[in-house]
């Protein structure tokens, strides 16, 4: 790390203050436990929301904090999903090691592509992430003997910690996904509230300036990109493990676009923005498509448009302006 880690003095105190856990966060996590008791028949939905939230969080790290706009993050999500699935297909269905392998595979892919990513900006950056995502999708389709092609793979996953079997209701799925989301948030908030995180924000705000004040901005960007890729990979592996299936769809442009939509909807650069976005987007989608399976996306579209007009900056952005919430 190029920036020195500061451990004492006023700067450190300020950083510590920034990273203090607020009451609202505690309420949020307690509320996340409620579905276990109140809405057990919605647990499988809740587990998929938690997975989407973790994925959105990983995108927030690069998009919200480092300013890398990506339309290809499903690449890492899908790589993680396939890593866990292929591992399980070959006889090792232990979930936690599956997550670890997924993180390594996706992180490695993030490492390789990060060299490309830091060289470009603006539209070229968006299009290169998109292009790499589409290339990965096509590759997975070509290697159908390994990936199962469009049919996907169905896999056997062992119980979590050898005790919790993945049940029809989704108790294990949600508990497992929620625990991983919690860990993800802890890691992410540690990163963004460190001097490294501040350097990233600096890059986002003015990337011509950071090298001038001695910040190795390319290395910083690469580092956060790799971390984010690994986190997206874990999210993908969680989806494989909680559903016992994986398909090309995990790598699709649609998934990359959806996660960015969720993140912007919730509010970027706020840690909880992606989570709130995932919760609102997926619950709205579930409820609306239940009421109107054929044309529900009309209403989703209206929702997105309305949010932009009423609360530019996303839902959390809008709320924080209204209530003066958050870390400010």
């Amino acid at each position, binding site marked *: 790390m190029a920036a020195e880690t500061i451990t004492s003095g006023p700067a450190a105190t300020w950083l510590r203050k920034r990273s203090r856990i607020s009451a609202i966060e505690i309420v949020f996590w307690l509320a996340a436990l409620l579905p276990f008791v109140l809405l057990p028949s919605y647990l499988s939905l809740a587990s998929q929301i938690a997975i989407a939230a973790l994925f959105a969080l990983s995108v927030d790290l690069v998009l919200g904090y480092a300013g890398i706009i990506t339309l290809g993050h499903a690449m890492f999500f899908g790589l993680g999903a396939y890593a866990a699935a292929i591992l399980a297909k070959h006889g090792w269905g232990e979930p936690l090691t599956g997550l670890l392998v997924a993180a390594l595979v996706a992180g490695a892919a993030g490492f390789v592509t990060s060299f490309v990513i830091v060289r470009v900006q603006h539209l070229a950056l968006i299009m290169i992430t*998109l292009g790499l995502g*589409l*290339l990965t999708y*096509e*590759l997975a389709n070509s290697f159908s003997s390994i990936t199962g092609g469009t049919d996907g793979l169905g896999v056997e996953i062992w119980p979590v910690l050898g005790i919790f079997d993945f049940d029809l209701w989704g108790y294990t799925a949600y508990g497992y996904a929620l625990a991983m989301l919690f860990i993800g948030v802890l890691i992410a908030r540690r990163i963004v509230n460190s001097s490294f995180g501040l350097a990233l924000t600096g890059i986002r705000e003015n990337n011509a300036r950071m090298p001038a004040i001695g910040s190795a901005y390319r290395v910083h960007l690469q580092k956060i990109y790799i971390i984010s890729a690994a986190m997206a990979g874990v999210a993908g592996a969680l989806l494989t493990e909680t559903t016992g299936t994986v398909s090309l769809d995990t790598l699709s442009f649609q998934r990359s676009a959806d996660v960015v939509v969720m993140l912007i909807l919730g509010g970027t650069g706020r840690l909880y923005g992606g989570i709130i976005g995932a919760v609102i987007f997926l619950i709205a989608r579930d409820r609306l498509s239940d009421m109107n399976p*054929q044309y529900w996306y009309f209403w*989703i*579209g209206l929702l997105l448009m309305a949010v932009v007009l009423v609360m530019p900056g996303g839902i959390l952005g809008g709320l924080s302006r209204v209530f003066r919430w958050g870390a400010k």
Partner: protein
Amino acid sequence: MAVVLFDGFAFGMLLFVLSVGLSVTFGLMNFINLAHCAFGMLGGYVAVVAMRAFGVPFLLALPFAFLAAGLVSVVLERSFFRRLYRAGGLNQVLFTIGMVFVAAASFAYFFGTGQQPIVLPDYLQGYWEVNGLRFGTYRIFLVAVSLVIAGLLVYGLEHTRFGARIRAAVDNQRVAQGLGLDVDTIFAITFALGAGLAGLGGALAIGIVGLDPSFGFHYLVYVLIVVAVGGLGSIGGSFVAAALLGIFDVAGKYFVPDMGAFLIYLFMVVLLLVRPLGLFGKR
């Protein structure tokens, strides 16, 4: 070989008509309109309705598609888009994606989810044979139309008063306003022109790729690739990029069919790495 090049070029020209409007609005007005292809879809459906319900011949349905998409876009620009010119890229993305959702659902609701079949007039079907090589008639038509459009656009922007106004308004809004130019109107007209061309592209596309409510999403990626590779705001760039992409796509599939789906993306990634601003991008 000549036929492959020609086919690719013709497909590229379709992409050019679909995407040039986005290049202009994105590049000149800095507005990321992901709903651009939704205007293409609108044009397509207008052409279908005109032909089927009112018996309008295909060639006459094309200007209808252009006008309808342009008109609708003016209404939307006046009521929504112009509030977003300064709202930042992410808000524009979210808003226009929402709009694509709404458009897709609306067309599915009113026209059903199926393909919209149209029958092209006889004189646009079949092929012309030159030295034993067969050139599709419709593709020849497509190339001709796009060349005319490209010519008009370049002439209009570079050599007319209105073109000069657009360039002035875009280069420096404040100064242009100070000089007494009605920047608002100029923006609205530019926007309408871009969307109208997308509408025309949508109508032309039915003859090659078909039309259904997913059109607005489906061609978004292709159109974005053309815009990025060509360079923002450059009409010549879009033209060259579209032609290259079309030729690359078709020739790639012809010579290395197993790589068919990869080449176009690979081409884009490599090109943007070498020239991040695209072929003719200025900023």
